[in-house]
Every structure is written in structure tokens, then in C-alpha cells.
């Protein structure tokens, strides 16, 4: 299968993951447990893009708002749409990221990396410059690795005999979200 076929045929995998991640983040009030790390903070905020169908029947729904409960997006889920893009706040240890995550291609857009001491340096000398570059790479990779770990948890359930129970809980969360 070439990459174009993989993207179109397996698109559901990323979208189901992001939808499941929204459910997981709300299940424990914004805390998600990562094995080997402990609890991290993960909150869906401000901006969401939902999709259903494909090709000419593709429908998209964009929801934005600072203080909203994302009610339109929850109704969208109930209409059969899945999450394609979401603005996520992520906190792990002392570090905080904000990023817009695209489900189909695993894109990280508008990533605001954690503020660190060397971020503010002018980095005039080569060693300081190198340290700054390494730190920014490390923080970018850390955000992706955290998403990888969350994706691994999703996959282990999605491709196991436990999926029907998890799916039932996910459906119940979607139904409840649209009622409120």
C-alpha cells in the first residue's frame, strides 16, 4: 500500500485516537495517566475541527471560543463526526506545551514550547546557541513522544478484546456530552 492509500484508508485511526483522547482527558478532569511517567495534564481547548464523510460528501465543523464548553463540537460527535484537529494544552512535570494537533497526518501546528531559562538568552556565543537549539529540538520531540505514548495506550486498547467495553464508555460519554 502506498502512502496516499494508507492516508485515505487508515485516516480513521488518527481521528478515533484524537476523539478518544478528548474523552480520556475529560474522564479524570484533565489528568491522563502515562505508564512510567504518572499523571500528565491534557486539556482540549479553544479550537476544534470535526469531520465526517470523505471526498465529495466530506463535512467539516469548526468550533472556536475561549470560554465555551465546546457544545457544538459535542453535538458534532453525536452526529457521527470525528475529531480531525484540536488545540491541546499539555503539562508534563515542570513543562507546558500548547499545540494544535492534526489527526490525519499527526501534524503539530502552532506549538508553543515550554519557557525555559535559555529560551530568553540571546545565545550570542556558539555554545549557548547550540544549547538553545538542542533544547528546542528536545522540547519538540518530547511533545511528539508524549503523543506517541498516548497513541500507544489507545492502540493497545483499540486492537485488543477490551475495545468493545472502551467503545461503549466512549459512546456513553458522547451521548452525555451532547445532553448537557
Amino acid at each position, binding site marked *: 500500500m502506498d502512502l496516499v492509500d494508507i492516508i485515505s484508508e*487508515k485516516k480513521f485511526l488518527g481521528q478515533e485516537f484524537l476523539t478518544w483522547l478528548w474523552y480520556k482527558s475529560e474522564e479524570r478532569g484533565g489528568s491522563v495517566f502515562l505508564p512510567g511517567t504518572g499523571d500528565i495534564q491534557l486539556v482540549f481547548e479553544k479550537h476544534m475541527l470535526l469531520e465526517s464523510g470523505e471526498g465529495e460528501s466530506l463535512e467539516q465543523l469548526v468550533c472556536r471560543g475561549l470560554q465555551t464548553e465546546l457544545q457544538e463540537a459535542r453535538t458534532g460527535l453525536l452526529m457521527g463526526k470525528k475529531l480531525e484537529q484540536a488545540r491541546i494544552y499539555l503539562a508534563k512535570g515542570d513543562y507546558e506545551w500548547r499545540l494544535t494537533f492534526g489527526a490525519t497526518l499527526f501534524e503539530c501546528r502552532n506549538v508553543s514550547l515550554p519557557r525555559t531559562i535559555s529560551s530568553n538568552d540571546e545565545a550570542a556565543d556558539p555554545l549557548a546557541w547550540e544549547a538553545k537549539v538542542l533544547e528546542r529540538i528536545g522540547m519538540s520531540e518530547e511533545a511528539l513522544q508524549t503523543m506517541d505514548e498516548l497513541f500507544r495506550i489507545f492502540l493497545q486498547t483499540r486492537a485488543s478484546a477490551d475495545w468493545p467495553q472502551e467503545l461503549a464508555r466512549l459512546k456513553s460519554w458522547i451521548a452525555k456530552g451532547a445532553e448537557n
Partner: protein
Amino acid sequence: MGLLSRTTTFVRYSVEGELPGNFWEFAAERIAKFSFRDIDDTFDEYSIGWVSIDNMFDSSFAHASYAVGDYIVLSMRIDERKVSKTLLQKYSRKEEERIKKEKEIPRLNRSHRVQIKEDIRLQLVKKSLPVPAVYDLCWNLANNTVLFFSTATKAQSVLEDFFKECFGLTIILQVPYLTAVHLLDLPGQERLQDLHPAILV
């Protein structure tokens, strides 16, 4: 939205194939060979090459090295002279009208019009200034992945070809399914192949 910008945007690629044993020598030679060549003082339409992520005018990496720890950090710079379609159409039509008047003929045949359009395009290209675009990338040599700091599909497609041409290695965008293959064990990968979309309502 590059690596050093306040906010950044990126996707991940995997690098396929084995790196040569004398990797840093190989990299130095390939990066020098494929470094950016300026076209400001020529009439060339297009130039692509590597520059420092710190300075788009530094193609010899005099101010900042591309080797940072176990990473190679580079910017892919593309300079291109572009001609807008509207301008091309206007000046092609103008030339057609001039020729028709000069030769006192009512119309020109198709091949003649195509030739006029191409001549005009070349004239306009020579008059236009090269427009630069710079895209950062960071190659993690420990796990052979590349972060590319753009989500523009055209830039990604150019990078895939240019990376292959420069280093002789194929890079593949890590979409969820391919990421999943790396994250799961063999039985998990087999189950992954059989998954179908779930209905969530």
C-alpha cells in the same frame, strides 16, 4: 514557524535505509555539494539548497554548524523567480496584437501563440526578483527521524525529493498508521491491519 520561531509547526518523517559508516564525512561532503547557490545575479529561475538555520545567507555554515549533538539541523532554502498568470496573459496578448497588426492578419495559429507566451514568460522571469522560502529540518541520527518544520504539502514534497537526491535516503511521512507500526509489537501490528472504522454513536 521554524525551529527557532516563538511558536513552531512540524511533522515527523522516518529515514529509511542504513547510514554510511563514515557518516559525518559523508554528510559534510553531501551538504557542501547541495548547499544553496544564489541566483540574484543570474537569470536562473530556481535554486534549492541547504543553508544554516540561523542565517539564510550562510550556505557555508561559517557562523553556525549544521552538526548539533546527535542531530543535523539545516534549512532548505528555495529561491524562485515567479511570474503572475495575469501579467503573463496581459503581455502575451499585447504581443499577439502587435504581431497581428504588423502582419495584417486576423488571427495567429495555436503554435505561434504558445511560442509567444513562452518568449514573454522568459522575458518576465528575467525581470522578476527571486522570492525566497526557507524551511527548517532537524535530523535525529540516534533514531533516524526527521522533524520538518512546515505542514505545506508542496514544501514536504520538495523536501522528500531533495533529501533523496542529496543523501540517497528515502524519507517517509509518519502518518498515524506508520507510527502505530513502530509502536506495536508483531501481534499488535497484525491486529492493526484488520482494524476498521468504528461507529462512535
